[in-house]
């Protein structure tokens, strides 16, 4: 068995009194698409920036391709590519100039025309950076991240703020990276992204990994329960909904009552009867198959977007 391509052990990072990362550990195998899933402020970006060598850990070890990002400098940078959450290029640099400039900074680089074609930027190759749409800027960022044909790619919130169409385009590119056997670490707070793209996911909250595994394994940990979300005319009696037939978990989130049930039909029938008996009224009812969000809610009592 080969050594993991990314190995993070007991990582800590604080900014003044704020502890952003608190003893985080995980590893990523070669050719794997690994996701760090968590809400904003969970410590994902701090973690990935320590992996990229942009931030110095307070404690713990980081190895990428067997190299310490803080100590191996250019040798490390030649082997990785990255999209940062917040970055920019000069307004008046043309697309082709930007990609050629970054290509020339590496000892070995891919064919820049091929990259432009692959990322559908050929027609925009003479456009100024400031005139690109959000999606085009993100495609350019991806092209630049891959310009050195890296072994490991870090993608920090690669689809944040993009419309669904562009998001799907980015997903296709990440699927291509998987097929090309690249090792990819992606941070996201989008459930769909983590479930669709990642071979394995670490759910991060308050600077710690609170669960990890394949998306399927994590959802199974949710006991395979269906989530039933209801809105009622009046608040129910305290804790009454928790005792309805087949309900394994019950919470109130923003005025919505969330029930988890291993036998949804029985639960719904029992719920309707209970509400009739209480003189309460059902305003809406939605059912969801278990998702990673359910795992997160079970573990933290909060939604990912909160």
């Amino acid at each position, binding site marked *: 068995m080969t050594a993991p391509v990314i190995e993070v052990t007991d990582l800590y990072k604080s900014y003044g009194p704020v502890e952003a990362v608190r003893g985080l550990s995980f590893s990523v195998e070669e050719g794997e698409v690994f996701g760090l899933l968590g809400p904003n402020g969970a410590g994902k970006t701090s973690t990935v920036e320590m992996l990229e060598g*942009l931030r110095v850990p307070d404690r713990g070890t980081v190895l990428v391709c067997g190299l310490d990002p803080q100590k191996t400098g250019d040798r490390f940078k030649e082997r*990785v*590519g990255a999209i940062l959450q*917040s970055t920019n290029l000069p307004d008046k640099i043309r697309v082709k100039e930007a990609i050629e400039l970054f290509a020339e*900074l590496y000892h070995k680089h891919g*064919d820049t025309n091929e*990259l432009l074609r692959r990322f559908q930027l050929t027609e925009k190759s003479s456009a100024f950076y400031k005139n690109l749409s959000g999606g085009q800027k993100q495609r350019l960022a991806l092209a630049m991240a*891959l310009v050195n*044909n890296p072994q490991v790619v870090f993608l920090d919130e690669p689809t944040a703020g993009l419309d669904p169409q562009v998001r799907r385009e980015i997903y296709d590119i990440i699927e291509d990276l998987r097929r090309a056997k690249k090792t990819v670490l992606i941070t996201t707070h989008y459930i769909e992204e983590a479930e669709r793209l990642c071979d394995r996911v670490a759910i991060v909250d308050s600077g710690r990994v609170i669960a990890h595994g394949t998306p399927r394994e994590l959802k199974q940990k949710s006991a395979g329960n269906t989530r039933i979300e209801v809105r009622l005319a009046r608040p129910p009696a305290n804790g009454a909904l928790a005792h309805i037939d087949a309900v394994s978990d019950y919470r109130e989130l923003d005025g919505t009552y969330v029930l988890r049930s291993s036998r949804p039909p029985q639960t719904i029938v029992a719920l309707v009867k209970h509400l009739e008996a209480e003189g309460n009224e059902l305003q809406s009812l939605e059912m969801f198959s278990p998702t990673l969000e359910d795992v997160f809610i079970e573990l933290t009592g909060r939604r990912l977007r909160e």
Partner: protein
Amino acid sequence: MSATPTMDYSQRPKYIAATWSLTKVRMLLAMRNRAFFFFSLMMPMLFLIGAVIFIHQKGGFVSQYILGVLLTWTVMGSFWGVSVQLVTFREQGILRRFRLAPVGAGPMLASSILSNYAMAVPTLLIEVLVCRYVLHIRNWGNPLGLFLLVTFGCAAFSAFGLIVASVTNTMQETQLINQLIWLGFLFLSGATIPLDSFPPWIQHAALFSPATYLAVGLETASMGTILWKDLATDIGGLAITLWAAFEISRRLFRWEPEAKVSKRAKLWVLAALIPIFAFGIAENHNGGYLKRTDANLKLLSQANREMTPQSQNHPQPSNSN
């Protein structure tokens, strides 16, 4: 995606290649920037037009002196553009992206200096040509001396600008500090008010400023009276400034606004300042600069006395080389 062909540039000296790539792009960006055109081309041209109007009737030797002053102003302005660009790049998160690539602070800073020099050359050439063909200076002064002083001057003052960019965080801060330094350079170098007009202690303090080496050197070279040993001293002073300023800015270089400068880097800054102080002390000791400024002014006032607007009998500067 892994099938994309790769090109191996490992045989090229990496830092030179990176510096050259960055220099090319910086030049392109400068040419597309309106602020660059205003500060680097329009402002010197306004000074030039002012000079043309002011001394058109005098011509000859006075023009020759004014050429040195104009070149000094343009060269000293080099620090302005590089500092503003570097701070803007850092504020906008552009430097962050470069930090991911295998390129260090050295090529980033060197490319700033080189592109700034390349973009200043046309302005400087225009100034020389206007002085020659519109203001009718009598000769080209010491062209090699002018070229060397302009080259080392642009590089040294650009590197100075990089120090400003290293210690400021915002554009407003940068502009404010630039203004203060610019005024200091202009008025305490002899480029605007002759050093002779100041009290002796200011004259001695001015010998610690690289602006003085540049101003005195360019004035003397434009009049054609510079001695080779004086030229070597001027260029030596500017070269020391260039090295020290580059080293300081490299040590203080920050890729991100929130990054802090380490104590070790601060100690390096102090160490890098030592040669500039040593040079200033040596010049205070031998007094060569003050004698040269005095001689330049005497030549100029003699020329003014002998000239009338109708007269063409200008004193011929003696080329001591």
